[in-house]
């Protein structure tokens, strides 16, 4: 378990949001650095993994990119169950997608893991001339609901890596909290084990390293 001292963390992350908001495009940009003008619609969900290094720690994201159509809603719990982080995506050129995002926020607040790090992404920020949702409105909403907020563009890559990076940072920070309170099963894993389990072994080192961040 040598790598625990290096703060290697596995974290399940789920993307939720309206059909066509750009969930798959954000993931594709983050994982492969690509953008497709016509991204295949997602059915059920697609899985990706990507590792980020944050200072001395690494976070391995296990990403579930879900399907956006309303009726797929009934499948979502399977994907957000046990998730350590969520990105709720809307399209800045669609008010409906913003409304839909709010519903996801409520659902996660109610049913998601209480320590979940949740980010709100206003995607397609490159479509400024078609904007329907103002930055201020979304920012205010995010603040009220304790969400981390960024406007992103999968097309131009603006803020895509940043949003994942910020989530990783918050999660590492939360990891410290979790190790103090030892709340079980929050969906944070250390090399395949729940962090609260492995922290019994490496409690000190991980805590110290995280603090120096």
């Amino acid at each position: 378990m040598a790598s625990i001292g290096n703060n290697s963390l596995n974290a399940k992350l789920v993307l939720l949001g309206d059909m066509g908001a750009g969930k798959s495009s954000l993931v594709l940009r983050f994982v492969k650095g690509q953008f497709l003008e016509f991204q295949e619609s997602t059915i059920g969900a697609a899985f990706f993994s990507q590792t980020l290094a944050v200072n001395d720690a690494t976070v391995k994201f296990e990403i579930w990119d879900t399907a956006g159509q309303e009726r797929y809603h009934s499948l979502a719990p399977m994907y957000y169950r046990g998730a350590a982080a969520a990105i709720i995506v809307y399209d800045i050129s669609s008010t409906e997608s913003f409304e839909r995002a709010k519903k996801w926020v409520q659902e996660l607040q109610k049913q998601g893991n209480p320590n979940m790090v949740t980010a709100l992404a206003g995607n397609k920020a490159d479509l400024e001339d078609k904007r329907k949702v103002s930055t201020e409105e979304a920012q205010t909403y995010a603040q009220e609901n304790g969400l981390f907020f960024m406007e992103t563009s999968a097309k131009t890559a603006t803020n895509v890596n940043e949003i994942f990076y910020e989530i990783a940072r918050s999660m590492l920070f939360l990891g410290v909290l979790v190790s103090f309170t030892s709340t079980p099963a929050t969906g944070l894993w250390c090399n395949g084990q729940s962090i609260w389990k492995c922290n019994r072994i490496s409690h000190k080192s991980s805590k110290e390293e995280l603090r120096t961040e």
Partner: protein
Amino acid sequence: MFGPQTHSEPSNGGFLSQKTNWRRITSSNPTTSATTITTITKKANNLSVKFQDLYGFSVEGNIDDVNVLNEVRERVRQQGKEWWALEASKGANWYLQPQHSSSGEGLTVPSKLTAIANTITSTMTLKKLIRKGIPPVLRPKVWLSVSGATKKRSTVPLSYYNDLLVAIEGKVTPATMQIDHDLPRTFPCHPWLDTPEGKAALRRVLVVYSFRDSDVGYCQGLNYIAALLLLVMKTEEDAFWMLAVLLENVLVNDCYTDNLSGCHVEQRVFRDLLAKKCPRISAHLEAMEFDVSLVATEWFLCLFSKSLPSETTLRVWDILFNEGAKVLFHVALAIFKMKEEELLRTHQIGDVIHILQSTTHHLFDPDELLTVAFDKIGSMTANTITKQRKKQEPAVMAELDQRLRRLNSVKMDEK
């Protein structure tokens, strides 16, 4: 279905190099087993090539894949010969809907029995033959017949499809808006689907169906199924009837409606079958807290069209239309079974998914899959599956109901 799409991409804008305190780690799929490593080395040695398969999808693979695909092409030709030989001896169209009840009418008892016996032999011959594959040119005719689509169509006026086409003209509904949104996102690299005619045909099939059954309307997933049906059936109207018979008669009810309850039922049935037919894998994955529905949902909703190569998908569909939805379970179980040893060595969800994905993407040889699906998985009668579904239905309804109530309580809190 068809390998990674390659497009020219705008560059990353030098973003990564500007940040100094973090970096992207590219090797995200740790190789945990010897088998995976061999495939990777092999790939590195072999040049990756891009080619078109039988149905025009561009596929990326190594030389081995190309060889397998050529072998499959040759086998398809041989299979064709068998079908022609039977046409020659039994008469053209011998396989078209055997007339069970009416054929014996007015005959004496012994000749009635002979007639029935003949029908049974024909059905058995046909079943065997279809399991070995329908030649692509015969697919439209055979599918329409064995699935019951022809019969379904015969119950409405000949002008039914065209009448609907006229009726939908210029109509905008939530379904049509979602269909329009998905048209360019349906197998975007396929040469025909990418043309205006291809998109228009796909649009008409989906929109007409959304008017035929407003409970289904449009469900994502149907776009891929309808697209592949169009490529096989060649005419829109035939594709439409195949879609209708599929949703209304072949698949479990409510697979695509409202809350996809039918799909939830199938997933539960599948989980139980996996525990029964592949107990070791099932136990191992359960210990990892890996729910097989995470991957199997897409298989069932797209009928494998998004994960298996096209000819392999269509071989599954050959059996689907002739024998019913149980083949979906056979095939899904087979995919797990084929990789049993590798799967048992996994410790991470990512590795499980990686194994399953690379397996399905490279299944260019349909017989390799179908042999496991039928010989190794063993028989399951349609009856058993129906019983299993009946057993699961109340649980699904209760679960969905409870979810709805919880969600409503979320809304109440808002006030």
